[in-house]
């Protein structure tokens, strides 16, 4: 074979009102075939009403090794949460 079919990531919206969720991946020659294959591979039992396909090489992912500098700064910013603020007991809902 000259060239392998590229890898595509498949996102499916299971029903209107919900977001597309990553379901898995598959190989296909082009986007149209990726959509058709995704229909057969991931929605054989009405699991979806909408499909996105993205060629895997177009996804940029964060590296877990950098999780420290990426995500830890959020941990000491407790003032971003409502419970940081004190209210008198009389106030029931705020």
């Amino acid at each position, binding site marked *: *074979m*000259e060239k392998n*079919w590229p890898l595509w990531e498949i996102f499916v919206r299971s029903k209107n009102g919900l977001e597309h969720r990553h379901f*898995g991946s598959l190989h296909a020659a082009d986007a149209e075939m990726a959509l058709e294959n995704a229909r057969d*591979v991931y929605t054989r039992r009405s699991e979806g009403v909408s499909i996105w396909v993205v060629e895997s090489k177009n996804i940029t*992912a964060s590296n877990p090794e950098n999780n420290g500098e990426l995500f830890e700064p959020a941990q000491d910013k407790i003032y971003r949460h409502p419970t940081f603020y004190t209210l008198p007991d009389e106030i029931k809902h705020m």
Partner: protein
Amino acid sequence: MSEAQLKDLEEIFEQRIANDEKIEPKDWMPEKYRKTHIRQISQHAHSEIVGMLPEGNWITRAPSLRRKVALLAKVQDEAGHGLYLYSACETLGISRDELYDQLHSGKAKYSSIFNYPTITWADMGAIGWLVDGAAIINQVPLCNTSYGPYARAMIRVCKEESFHQRQGFEIMMSLCNGTEVQKQMAQDALNRWWWPSLMMLGPVDAESVHTEQSMKWKLKRKTNDELRQQFIDQTVPQADILGITVPDPDLKWNEETGHYDFGEIDWDEFWQVVKGHGPCNKERMNARVGAWEEGTWVRDAAMAYAEKQQNKKENQAKAV
């Protein structure tokens, strides 16, 4: 990386698994974890793909349209399961092509049960009932395994698998309620598939080389012997309902243990089949490799067409 650093990383890693954290593709993992997972997930994927062959044998000869659509849907599910698993496996940094190479060259194994022939229609019933039954017992604990993509693929597989077993049992049920000849056909299928199904759950614990490590990584949550006992305990009463006899003279309910005692498994046969000397090893591999090779021109044509369409789009964009 120094040896001490590596050891630290390994300790943190083992701790994460012990805490029931999931491992995701880009996380650091020990090389052995990666390799073991590639081996197990790919074996599993190969089994789904080769598993289509014995059943494909009967699609054109299914006795009714109802049976035919069910069998077609089941075989299509198996293709799907193979694809979920291959894609989970590829997240570990191995390509689909390498995985296929390993299968086609015989380097990778698949479940040896698929090296037995399907000689009567009752075999479709017995496979669904027994082989898929054993597979479910093997697979349900894997929905909780430590490697995220594998666990997610298994959840999808397990959801779809129970239809497979039920359609198999229904086939057995119809045959057992049918003519004497049909009932004999069902009994004969049980006779031939019973022992290979027990072997499917793997070598006895004392001889299983991977069990200890796999338990630690939650790649396995119960030992082979525990799974086998569970399979026997749940299946024997089902055979009673069908009114056919499990081909094991030593099979007996043990009041004390609350389990069935069962006879000696012929492990020589198991190892013979694993080593490639089963009744259909060659036939299965020829069918699989043949399908792949004869499909080359289709894959190439699809790729050429995709490139042509892409070029056309780019040229049109330039012209505007």
